[in-house]
């Protein structure tokens, strides 16, 4: 093999990028060439464990000897066609002039942050680890939770330009084979130039990509993903994304929070009811307020009617315009606070919420009940932050319905959206299960939360391999033993 020419060719194929590095050695007439990308490889390992042993060797060197010199474990013999792929994935490729064989050693290394508590789902009690952007770290976080041979991790690459590493993780014997096969098929069918984040995959693997409903689970916490995998779901780890996707997904998953599993079940049930009430309040609150003011003031109790009439009589706008204005103001403030540094975000919040709101009320442009209604609805929205985008959209739709059709329209709208959600099924899971279709056993961890020992069976809302989660006989034996000892 002409080492110099081969290295030159590959450098050309890599467009002589600044981070392409190459080294050559001449050992008694045998040329050895190294090529790698210094931006994504561990230079110390390269120097100390690969280059140094070869350079210090005295005598004629062969390919087999070369293999034994290098110390990293991840060494493989590759074909000419695989050279570029290996270089781009953080490997060092070694050519030797007295052999046609090529050696590749994986010494990938780049700066990653350590697993930390994700800002999207903090817990009071419970694990504080979160996934990171490095898929290998994410795999480690999962492996640490499953010391079992049944954890299967399958690899795929998506994106013509990015060739992003995707890991499909599931528990063999728990996840349904049809779901796994369907997911693999959908991943295989993706024709896209690049996957920058796991969110890119969302619309590409859902059965109703044009729907506004969220159809794939997202989590930043390994404990949550592990719990979902135990129920038979399949996790999708995407390199460069700290968000791991899970399928199949049902709406009620977002109603559950990791805190629910680390606190008393009665309290968890209460909190879940609060979340349901908050969703209803967030979606229907502003619309109902508008409808009552515009169409049905006569059904309001007299005292409330007087209070509202008194507060709104000076306001020059209709209730709809008033609420729309306050909601949009909130949305603007929200967007600003997301994008600005925290110190500036705080300042804008003070200016927006306190000064603008207060002055608006005092100037008679907006009424205090309208501010209260929007404030409650917007706060309620974030009891389920994972669904915030959908609920915000529904909030605006119901405001329009309330303003144009009144109470009848609002209830009709609810029926419409529930019927619509009932038509959505992704990976065989009805979107609103276990509420409709009603599955009693799954409601043990639905709107209600029962103690862990009562959740003996696998969920029926989606496809999985039905197995006993808790061995009832062993449980009874343990109980008997403890009774005897008493």
């Amino acid at each position, binding site marked *: 093999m002409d080492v110099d020419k081969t290295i030159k060719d590959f450098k050309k194929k890599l467009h002589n990028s600044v981070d392409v590095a190459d080294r050559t050695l001449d050992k008694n007439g045998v040329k050895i060439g190294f090529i790698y990308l210094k931006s994504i490889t561990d230079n110390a390992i390269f120097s100390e464990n690969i280059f140094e042993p070869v350079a210090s060797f005295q005598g004629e060197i062969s390919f087999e000897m070369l293999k034994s010199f290098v110390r990293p474990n991840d060494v493989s013999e590759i074909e000419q066609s695989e050279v570029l792929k290996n270089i781009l994935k953080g490997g060092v490729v070694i050519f030797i002039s007295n052999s046609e064989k090529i050696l590749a050693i994986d010494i990938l290394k780049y700066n990653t942050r350590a697993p930390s508590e994700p800002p999207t789902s903090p817990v009071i009690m419970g694990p504080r680890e979160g996934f990171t952007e490095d898929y290998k770290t994410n795999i480690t976080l999962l492996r640490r939770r499953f010391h079992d041979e049944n954890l299967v991790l399958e690899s795929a690459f998506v994106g013509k330009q990015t060739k992003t590493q995707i890991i499909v993780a599931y528990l063999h014997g728990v996840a349904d084979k049809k779901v796994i096969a369907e997911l693999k098929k959908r991943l295989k069918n993706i024709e896209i130039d690049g996957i920058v984040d796991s969110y890119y995959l969302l619309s590409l693997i859902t059965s109703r990509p044009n729907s506004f409903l969220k159809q794939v689970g997202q989590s930043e916490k390994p404990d949550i993903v592990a719990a979902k995998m135990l129920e038979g779901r399949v996790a999708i780890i995407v390199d460069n994304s700290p968000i791991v996707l899970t399928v199949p997904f049902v709406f009620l998953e977002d109603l559950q929070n990791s805190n629910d599993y680390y606190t008393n079940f009665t309290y968890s049930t209460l909190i879940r009811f609060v979340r349901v009430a908050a969703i209803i309040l967030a979606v229907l609150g502003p619309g109902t307020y508008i409808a009552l003011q515009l169409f049905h003031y006569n059904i309001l109790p007299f005292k409330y009617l007087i209070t509202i009439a008194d507060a709104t009589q000076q306001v020059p706008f209709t209730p709809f315009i008033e609420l729309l204005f306050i909601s949009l103001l909130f949305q603007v403030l929200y967007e600003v606070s997301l994008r600005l540094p925290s110190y500036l975000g705080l300042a804008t919040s003070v200016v927006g919420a306190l000064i603008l709101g207060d002055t608006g009320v005092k100037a008679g442009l907006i009424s205090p009940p309208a501010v209260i209604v929007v404030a409650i609805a917007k706060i309620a929205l974030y009891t389920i932050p994972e669904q915030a985008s959908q609920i915000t959209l529904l909030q605006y739709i119901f405001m329009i319905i309330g303003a144009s059709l009144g109470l009848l*329209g609002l209830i009709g709208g609810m029926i419409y959206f529930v*019927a619509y959600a*009932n038509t959505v099924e992704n990976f065989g899971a009805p979107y609103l299960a276990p509420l409709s279709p009603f599955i009693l056993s799954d409601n043990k961890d639905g709107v209600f939360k029962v103690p862990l020992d009562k959740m003996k069976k696998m969920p029926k809302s989606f496809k999985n391999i039905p197995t006993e989660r808790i061995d009832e006989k062993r449980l009874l034996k343990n109980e008997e033993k403890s009774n005897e000892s008493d």
Partner: protein
Amino acid sequence: MRVIDRNLNAWQTGILIFILLFANKIIVLPSLLFEGAGLESIFMLVFVFMFEIGLIWLFYILKKRYPNKSFASVLQKHFGEGVKVLFFAAFCIFFLSKAVLLYNVTYIFFRNLIYKDTSNFLILFCFLPIINHLAISGLRALGRTAQMFFPVIAGILIFCLVVGIFGIDSRPLLFSNSFESVVLTGLRHIAPFGDMIFLFAFMDKIEVKKGQWKVIFSFAGAATILIVAVNLIFMLSYTYTSFMHPYAIFEIMSFVKEFGGLGRIDIISMVLIIVFAYFHLAIYLKTFMLSFHQIFPKIDNIYSILTFDFVFVVIVTFFIVNLETAVVYGEQILPWIAIFSFLILPVFVFVALLSGRRKKKTKFSLEAAE
């Protein structure tokens, strides 16, 4: 437009039966019944309900005999294509008429109590898109949506009944009306009944597993008890002024002092009436759609919905716009249509069942002879 009508399970069927049994029977009917036949009208109500549940029983027998067949194929097999088409045309007329009656009664309720003198078109604009969507979404989505709203419906109903009991302040006399007036009142107001024939149109799309029929009958029984209870509480609450209170479920909550601290609790019953109205009309439209498809199998489903919408809008806009017309329509025209559900259809089903049995017997005897 492709409509995927996947099967309904026993629970969803039971809930649809539960909902449809309430159609028109808890708004105007109690007042009209009491006006015509006093407290004895309850007996007539129970009597007609026996027929209604009898229709479910008949469906049960037919479904057991022909588990995977549609009602259309049963009719075609025993009476031929012509009878099948006539039957499904009658289904279309029946459910369109019922939709008109139901819409009219609820429209008047909404106009008087929720929307002050609003236009008919606003109410139509609320109803039509939603019921069209429910019909297009398919039977399973309709069943699941009803299942989702069922806890709300049941909760409000029970709340209304509990609250209503506190409003009872009189004891009307029993047996003060003649048997004849009771029967005649019952017959005059039979129009809201007979809806259970919708099951025959859904026949091949209902999947009842072994032992689940009791679920269906339980829902039907529970609905019957609740409707009779609403009627009874209303009659005991408005003994002397029932004619002034046409909206029974709403009225029994209106003047209950014990719950004054909660404010206007009658709003809750309004929500119930609205939810019921949407589902009633959606089931009527879905039945119309399936029946229309049996008459014109090659025509796209969207045309059956458009036909329903067009005829419905024309009738409710030009012919029926007030309570008096609705009462005349319900008392004088619609009772004749009830003959179809309570007489013609059962007779044909019986004949189909008997001829099926006879053919089976003949087959057995032939086998024995061989």
